[in-house]
């Protein structure tokens, strides 16, 4: 789960990582009020869960509370890469002497944590990695041993940041590491980390992503999540335990298991179709869940046909068939549903569907055949 900047900063503050003083505002008036409380000169920053907001005009300087009101009214409601800005973070503007980059994340291939630091901050770090890899200092931390001061020294001396920033940066890095580990984060990235005019080092931005699997030991995750904007269709799906991602095509996809669903998207594409979504009902899905899945998919007016591709393991195909029939009964389904069942109780499931013929129901024998049929139907072919 990717957090908003203000959420990440609130969490980092608890680990004594210095961040600028700031307040969240949802209206221009609130922004003006926040600016007044912060002493006038502020930065107004769009809060969105996507990068590149600076270039998109989502970050602006304001010299006065009046100016803060003005820029907040421009930024609020702005669309940044499909994300509507509903909040701004109003922060006291400081004097910046230099900008750096620092992060901690999990390095899967080394099975260790990786710390990275660069004196080239405030720019796209992927770009730095591609054009000037030596400008990024890297150090692995063994999760079983944890961080030691030398790790921080290697990052700080290795990245050749301003000597005046060294002492505070060496103190800050272990705190950032602690935040990374204790928050069950998958990423803690500060870009830029700044050296201020008066010689202080602080996190001017914060990208924190946390592992939702650890929600049981972090009650705060639910609060953080409540502030996130989830599209209606996705929220509906999530509440019912479905793993759903909307795409732009017209062939609705339902399957069990992420790998099989991804593979189904691929074969639909290969057959000349465009998937309308990714939907994984997970393992052991029952009839009710299947009915909800069909409801979610068919609520998208773009969908011209639906492909249900199930390979039963813990999932029982008879229950899948029951769910499909229940959905057809309950909903006014206007698009054809192609069903392919294999694995646990597949024969039973196929028979149930055959015994209850519905004008919108199309049976398919194989995964490839089902994909071709669904694409053909989406393109207006006959059942």
């Amino acid at each position: 789960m990717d957090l908003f900047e203000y959420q990440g900063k609130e969490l980092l503050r608890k680990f004594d990582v210095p961040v600028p003083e700031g307040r969240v505002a949802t209206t221009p008036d609130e922004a003006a009020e926040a600016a007044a409380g912060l002493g006038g000169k502020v930065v107004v920053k769009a809060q969105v869960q996507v990068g590149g907001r600076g270039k998109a005009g989502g970050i602006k300087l304001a010299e006065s509370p009046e100016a803060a009101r003005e820029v907040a009214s421009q930024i609020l409601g702005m669309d940044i890469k499909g994300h509507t800005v509903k909040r701004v973070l109003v922060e006291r503007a400081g004097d910046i002497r230099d900008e750096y980059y620092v992060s901690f994340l999990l390095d899967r291939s080394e099975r260790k944590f990786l710390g990275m630091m660069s004196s080239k901050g405030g720019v796209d770090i992927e770009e730095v990695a591609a054009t000037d890899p030596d400008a990024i200092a890297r150090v692995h931390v063994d999760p079983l041993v944890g961080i030691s001061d030398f790790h921080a020294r290697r990052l700080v001396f290795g990245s050749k940041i301003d000597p005046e920033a060294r002492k505070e940066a060496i103190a800050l890095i272990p705190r950032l590491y602690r935040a990374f580990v204790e928050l069950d984060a998958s990423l803690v990235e500060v870009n830029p980390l700044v050296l201020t005019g008066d010689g202080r080092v602080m996190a001017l931005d914060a990208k924190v992503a946390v592992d939702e699997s650890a929600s049981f030991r972090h009650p705060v995750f639910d609060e953080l999540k409540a502030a996130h904007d989830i599209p209606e269709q996705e929220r509906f799906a999530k509440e019912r335990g479905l793993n759903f991602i909307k795409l732009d095509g017209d062939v609705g996809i339902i399957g069990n298991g992420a790998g099989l669903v991804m593979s189904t998207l691929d074969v639909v594409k290969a057959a000349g179709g465009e998937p309308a979504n990714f939907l994984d009902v997970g393992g052991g899905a029952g009839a009710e869940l299947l009915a909800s899945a069909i409801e979610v998919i068919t609520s998208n007016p773009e969908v011209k046909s639906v492909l249900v591709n199930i390979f039963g393991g813990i999932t029982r195909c008879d229950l899948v068939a029951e769910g499909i029939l229940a959905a057809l009964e309950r909903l006014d389904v206007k698009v054809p549903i192609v069903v392919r069942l294999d694995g646990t109780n597949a024969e039973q499931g196929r028979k149930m569907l055959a015994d209850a013929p519905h004008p919108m129901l199309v049976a398919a024998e194989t995964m490839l055949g089902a994909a071709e049929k669904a694409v053909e139907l989406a393109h207006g072919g006959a059942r």
Partner: protein
Amino acid sequence: MSILIDENTRLVVQGLTGREGSFHAGRNRDYGTNLVAGVTPGKGGTDVNGVPVFDTVAEAVSATGANTAMVFVPARFAADAVLEAYDGGVDVIVAITENIPAMDMARVVPYIRSSDRDATLIGPNCPGLISPGRANVGIIPGEICSQGPVGLVSRSGTLTYQIIHELTQRGIGQSTCVGIGGDPIPGSDFIDILAKFEDDPQTEIVVFVGEIGGDAEERAAAWAKDNMTKPIVSYIAGFTAPPGKRMGHAGAIISGSKGTAQAKAEALEAVGIRVGRNPTEVAELVVEARKAS
């Protein structure tokens, strides 16, 4: 022969008294797996359909000689259960449980891998493994498998079933099918399992099923080039998957790859591994490779 599990497997199931645990352990036993014990703290002395339950893995091992553990306990207790199995002396640990915090596995996996014992953790968040006709530990449906020369390793669950099904339909059986799971830090990776297949006399050809994200497939391809003599056929899922809604870009930097299906397929093909475009074509490529050898 097969890898990791066979007729000598003596299985202890952690979480045997739970709904999922008892159901799948029962299916494994029906398949012929030697299910010797269950572990549920506080329920020692009871039994599930005649299988004795112990309070700790150590007790179960000393009373029954269990050598393989299957972990079916809820996510928040699962890392502890894996460590308990290892500490209890079990050398093959299969963790089915999904949604275990990555921070937990970041400690457990290196700990087990760095030990001087020859212990193997499969999973977590995996369907387990099956050596057809010999033993089944996990949730892979036994009826779609048959005994034969193909060693299969995959990050996926149901997609694996689809490919096993396609193979079996063409009369091609399997030595062992291993689902290593889709977590960021799996107990065993592709290379660990490929190495075991290379050493297994029954395995003549390997099918390796990857998916988008990370760089495990690319690393396996590089390793296979220098270390595998047996032919490999591969499949990668996720050519059309949308890029994740990530904010940070740091992940792509360390992997040295975008983690896309295209990049993975290219890395595999560059070392001479044939990549099927769909599960059906994978099975057909296996048939071809068998004819050629």
